[in-house]
């Protein structure tokens, strides 16, 4: 509080963040929340159609979060600690599952592992029923482990090698070091990863929609209320239930943290290498990651083959007509829009999330817990409601002059803040305050301390925020479906149209184009950022 009074610029920045969050997270969501009205909520709750989806949502969230975080932790450990080879390749593989535009990737799983799946039936002669909890669980584990992986890897890479070296020197086995030093120190990342993964699983719509069978979860119920019945008010009521669940998860996470200190970066520089893990463990990591990579590549390979054949899998004649279609008409514009919107949103979202994370973690002003929750909340809002909220709030006659691209970018920014914010918050808890305090005692303002001292050390968190936002923006359908206009159509809208037109080849080709574009863009960004993010990267 004292520093706020001393530094009007800091106070102003804080107020700006609060106003932006109120305007672009809270206000649109209030529009959705009040839509059903009291009687709408009452009749919906009495109707009781939400009970089974609620139970299913809780069950699926518990299962998928557990396995996804476990897988994410193993993957992160392998990437940060082991001496396995091909790390650059595995890093890309670790992002790929995030690049799954709705429907198409889950459909690819069905082609491989369904009851007539190429693997299950073609290779093993089995006809499993892919629909139901098991199917959702399996695909969500693969689809959401990247969130956990990125958050945990960021925290692990910042943990202090000296403590582990000290433990080893005192005679502890690598196993004991892992359990008593590495794991406890990665708790903020682990907690952030569990919370974020759980909230994203809770909100997931695409996988349960395609693989649920009779199993309805809350987001698919909400979506089908809109899509099948145009029943917006009941759908909004479902959305409110989702938000309450997210609030519950958030409270649970606070309990889990217990307000301990996890500082591992103090004023003194650490240049000590990590204690080597046994060679056998490195090999085990390599084999495990390779197996996972094989599975993921198989899924995306199926997609590529679908795009290149006439009508996969019953007409395997090679063709480029699907890609020719992608290149026709306004389709190129859709791909270009996707690229521009996503890049703009990722840059803004990553920096905003980092700054907000710093304000919340380092500030001592009242109400920061609330802002903390508000910055995580968007993860629990199904994209479709985020979009509807924006449309209701900002489609006003007096705002008609604003180009719709802005609204889409803003929606992408604020919908995707949680991961970058969580990464920044977890990272900051590992960095000793004394580093910034050194800067402020030398006369720097708090803001200057943030920009010159903290930001360079959080390059990893910034990167997590940027990459996740970019990748999710490239692949979101539900968020833009209510916001796009003809000139601001994006790739996923076109894919959705093709899926609805039963044009599997065209949808696959468009998806391949969309994903390739995203990968090329990420590689270019990484190249461009190399000079600037070097400080953050050097710690990894």
């Amino acid at each position: 509080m004292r520093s706020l009074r001393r530094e009007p610029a800091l106070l102003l920045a804080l107020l700006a963040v609060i106003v932006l969050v109120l305007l672009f997270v809270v206000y649109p969501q209030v529009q959705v929340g009040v839509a059903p009205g009291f009687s709408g909520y009452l009749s919906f709750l009495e109707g009781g159609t939400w009970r089974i989806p609620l139970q299913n949502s809780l069950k699926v969230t518990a299962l998928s979060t557990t396995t996804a975080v476990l897988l994410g932790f193993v993957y992160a450990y392998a990437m940060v600690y082991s001496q396995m080879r091909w790390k650059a390749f595995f890093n890309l593989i670790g992002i790929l599952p995030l690049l799954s535009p709705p429907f198409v990737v889950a459909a690819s799983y069905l082609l491989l592992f369904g009851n007539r799946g190429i693997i299950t039936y073609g290779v093993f002669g089995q006809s499993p029923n892919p629909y139901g909890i098991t199917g959702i669980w399996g695909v969500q584990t693969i689809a959401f482990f990247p969130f956990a992986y990125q958050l945990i890897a960021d925290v692990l890479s910042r943990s202090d090698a000296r403590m582990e070296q000290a433990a080893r020197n005192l005679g502890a086995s690598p196993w004991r070091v892992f359990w008593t030093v590495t794991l406890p120190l990665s708790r903020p990342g682990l907690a952030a990863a569990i919370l974020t993964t759980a909230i994203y699983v809770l909100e997931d719509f695409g996988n349960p929609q395609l693989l649920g069978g009779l199993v309805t979860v809350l987001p698919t119920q909400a979506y089908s209320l809109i899509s099948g019945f145009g029943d917006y008010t009941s759908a909004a009521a479902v959305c409110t239930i989702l938000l309450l669940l997210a609030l519950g998860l958030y409270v649970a996470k606070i309990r889990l943290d217990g307000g301990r200190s996890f500082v591992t970066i103090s004023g003194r520089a650490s240049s000590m290498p990590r204690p080597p893990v046994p060679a056998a463990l490195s090999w085990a990591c390599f084999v495990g990651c390779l197996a996972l990579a094989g599975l993921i590549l198989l899924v995306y390979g199926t997609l590529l083959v679908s795009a290149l054949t006439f009508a996969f899998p019953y007409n395997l004649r090679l063709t480029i007509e699907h890609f020719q279609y992608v290149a026709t008409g306004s389709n190129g514009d859709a791909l270009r829009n996707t690229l521009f919107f996503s890049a703009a949103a990722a840059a803004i979202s990553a920096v905003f999330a980092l700054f907000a994370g710093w304000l919340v973690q380092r500030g001592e002003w009242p109400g920061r817990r609330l802002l903390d929750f508000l910055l995580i909340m968007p993860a629990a809002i199904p994209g479709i409601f985020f979009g509807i909220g924006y449309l209701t709030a900002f489609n006003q006659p007096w705002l008609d002059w604003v180009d719709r691209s802005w609204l889409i970018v803003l929606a992408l920014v604020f919908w995707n803040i949680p991961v970058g914010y969580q990464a920044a918050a977890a990272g900051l808890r590992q960095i000793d305050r004394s580093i910034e305090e050194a800067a402020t005692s030398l006369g720097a303002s708090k803001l200057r301390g943030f920009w010159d001292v903290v930001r360079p050390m959080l390059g990893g968190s910034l990167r997590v925020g940027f990459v996740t936002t970019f990748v999710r923006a490239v692949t979101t359908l539900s968020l833009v479906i209510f916001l796009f206009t003809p000139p601001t159509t994006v790739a996923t809208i076109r894919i959705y149209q093709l899926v609805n037109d039963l044009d599997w080849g065209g949808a696959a080709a468009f998806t391949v184009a969309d994903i390739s574009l995203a990968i090329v863009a990420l590689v270019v960004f990484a190249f461009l950022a190399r000079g600037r993010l070097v400080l953050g990267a050097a710690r990894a």
Partner: protein
Amino acid sequence: MTPELDRRNFLKLVGVTAIVASCGGASTASPAPSTGGTAKATGRISIYSALNESTNNQLFAAFTQATGVQVDVLPLAAAGELQTRITAEKASPKADIFVGGSSEFHDPLGKQGLLEPYKSPKASALKAEFKEASGNWTGWYTGIFGMVTNSGEMTKAGLKAPTSWDDLLDAKWKGNLVLPDPVKTGGGYIFIATQIFRFNRDEAKAMDYMKKLHTNIRAYIGTSPAAIGEVSGAKAAGAPNWAHDILTEKAKNPAVDLSVPSDTGFEVGAVSIVKGTKNLAGAQAFVDWVLTPEAGALNVKLSNRGSTLEGVASAPGAPTLAQVKLVNYDRQWATDNKDRILKLWQQAVGIQ
């Protein structure tokens, strides 16, 4: 630097907004109420279309050629989303026309006062069931609920195309049948409602049917097109589904067959004018045009759907409302009782 930039842009936005708001008040006069039909249609109209992608381009190009009115189309082959979007946009409507999708998606908009009633002179000959009495929406095409089968899988299982929905209760169908999920898809719900009307609204009998059918169903599929995909990809022998979509798939995969069991349900595809339209004459011209035999025939050709006009022939191989035996489908009742029926169904099949 970006938060600064963000804030700066935001402030700019606020500033410009204030300026526009302060001088905008004077210039926006409400448009004079139209007398309808008499004004010459010109300019552009914005169309929210739930029609298939393949239909949109050619249909709207033909409209522009016939009338000179230009079209901006917002295509989204999901009428529920478009309905919700029009509701959410009511503060500043962006659409002039909402076209496509069953009338169930247009009707609530009319009740909320979000549609501009228009009784097209071209609609006077239509049967009463094809139009809303006060002119909120007009039906211009029809879709029939049928059955998609895969010839290879049918032979393997020793099955014949069903002539009645009761045929699906045959034990041979066990594990060979998929159904669009009644909770998640409009088609799946129309299937249940059809059964209720088939049993003269005896809900107990209809639920008994659904319960028996449940034992034959291998999976409930999240979208209607995906259920056709299951059958086309030989993952199931058959699925109840939309006849026109089945015909579209049949053109790609000859193993796919269409049949229409008796006492089936259907949809009336509607067109409506959105209240607040900035080009009423253009919007009315569009409604008039889709009700011409030329437009009807073009839509039949492009989408395999039927036309509500008596004189328009159906697509080759497509069933017509006159040929198939329909149930007495009460659209209003089906809409009003949706929640209750779905709950009954969930109880009947034991998922509640």
